[in-house]
């Protein structure tokens, strides 16, 4: 009888314990456990097809917010920061956009919108960005035709992911700054802020 009671007690305890563990898996604290580590990658693996001073190639992509977004819809109203990141659920990317979520005021002060772009599909991007807090900017999927926009810009890597690239476009639709960062490194916020300040100071 005692053995049976102990067995039931242990089973009950384990059930409660693992249930609690499961519940905690939903919380952001365990977000990093879901991240795949690809190791150190070739810093840059593509050739840019755009230049500073040129018109930014227009595109339309679906967003996780539900609407399609066209680059030229911001012409005349907002500076645009294109933020290509290589892939969802990878280490540096998962730390980059949460910073932009937090620094919203800096972008708004400079009358800028971010368009976050990866080659992942919408369901993947939806699940991944849920952990990042209040994503106030459009997150776009360049999934199909795969990497078509990244390819036009020259930031599609040979394995089908994109570079970690920032492209600053002014309200006239002109490319004002480009940073193709080492894929293993997060670009400093300073690059974006300085570029936007420069654009706004010349207006």
């Amino acid at each position, binding site marked *: 009888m005692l053995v049976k*009671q*102990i067995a*039931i*007690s*242990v089973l*009950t*305890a384990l059930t*409660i*314990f693992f249930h*609690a563990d499961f519940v905690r898996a939903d919380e*952001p*604290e365990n*977000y*990093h456990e879901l991240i795949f580590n690809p190791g150190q990658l070739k810093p840059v693996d593509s050739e840019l097809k755009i230049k500073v001073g040129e018109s930014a190639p227009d595109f339309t992509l679906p967003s996780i917010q539900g609407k399609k977004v066209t680059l030229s819809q911001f012409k005349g109203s907002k500076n645009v920061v294109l933020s290509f990141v290589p892939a969802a659920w990878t280490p540096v990317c998962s*730390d*980059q956009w*949460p*910073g932009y979520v*937090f*620094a919203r*005021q*800096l972008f708004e002060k400079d009358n800028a919108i971010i368009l976050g772009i990866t080659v992942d599909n919408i369901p993947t991007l939806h699940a991944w960005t849920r*952990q*990042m*807090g209040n994503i106030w900017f459009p997150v776009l999927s360049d999934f199909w035709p795969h990497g078509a926009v990244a390819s036009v810009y020259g930031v599609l890597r040979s394995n089908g992911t994109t570079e970690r690239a920032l492209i600053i476009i002014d309200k006239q639709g002109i490319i004002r700054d480009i940073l193709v960062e080492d894929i293993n490194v*997060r670009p*400093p*916020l*300073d690059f974006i*802020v300085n570029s936007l300040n420069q654009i706004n100071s010349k207006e």
Partner: protein
Amino acid sequence: MKKFTFLPLSVFIVFFFFTGISIAETKTEIAPLPDVTLTIPENKAYIDYLGLKGEPGTPFKLSDIDADVLMIELFSMYCPYCQKAAPAVNELYELLEQKKRPDLKLVIIGIGANNTDLEVETFRQGFKIAFPLFSDPDLSIYKILEGAGTPTFIGCKKDGDKKVIFFRKSGGFTDPPEFLDNLLNSAGLK
């Protein structure tokens, strides 16, 4: 009645599991505080808070900070957990201020791991952080202090004429008074 007799045992086993995890997260061995050099800030209030003697812009060592207990938070502006933990860390700062006595100086600083000055300043302004923050753009300080993700909390205390690390915790916390109790208990100050 008999069928409920196993419940206390279950509760004990669950408590044992969770307590074990909690201890594992914060347990640390006493280790010397490594040499870390920072720059004395311009802000006079920060200089007074840290008890530093030098001029702004000149270097100082972590061990120069005049504190019986020094809490170092390794954070990043980009880290959602650090963002989530920031209000609780602010509350911890307030609690440390309330606990201060002439013979017990409690100090907290933040070090922005892989953050530039601008990123640290953005974090400071966003959360209205009152204690001093420093940037560590190349992660050199993070590596010397053996950070384990962000946020990491490292407690240091005086040990004779030296300073030692006596407390480490990776991850945020939600109960600042409890966190402070653990810290001061670990420092042998409670």
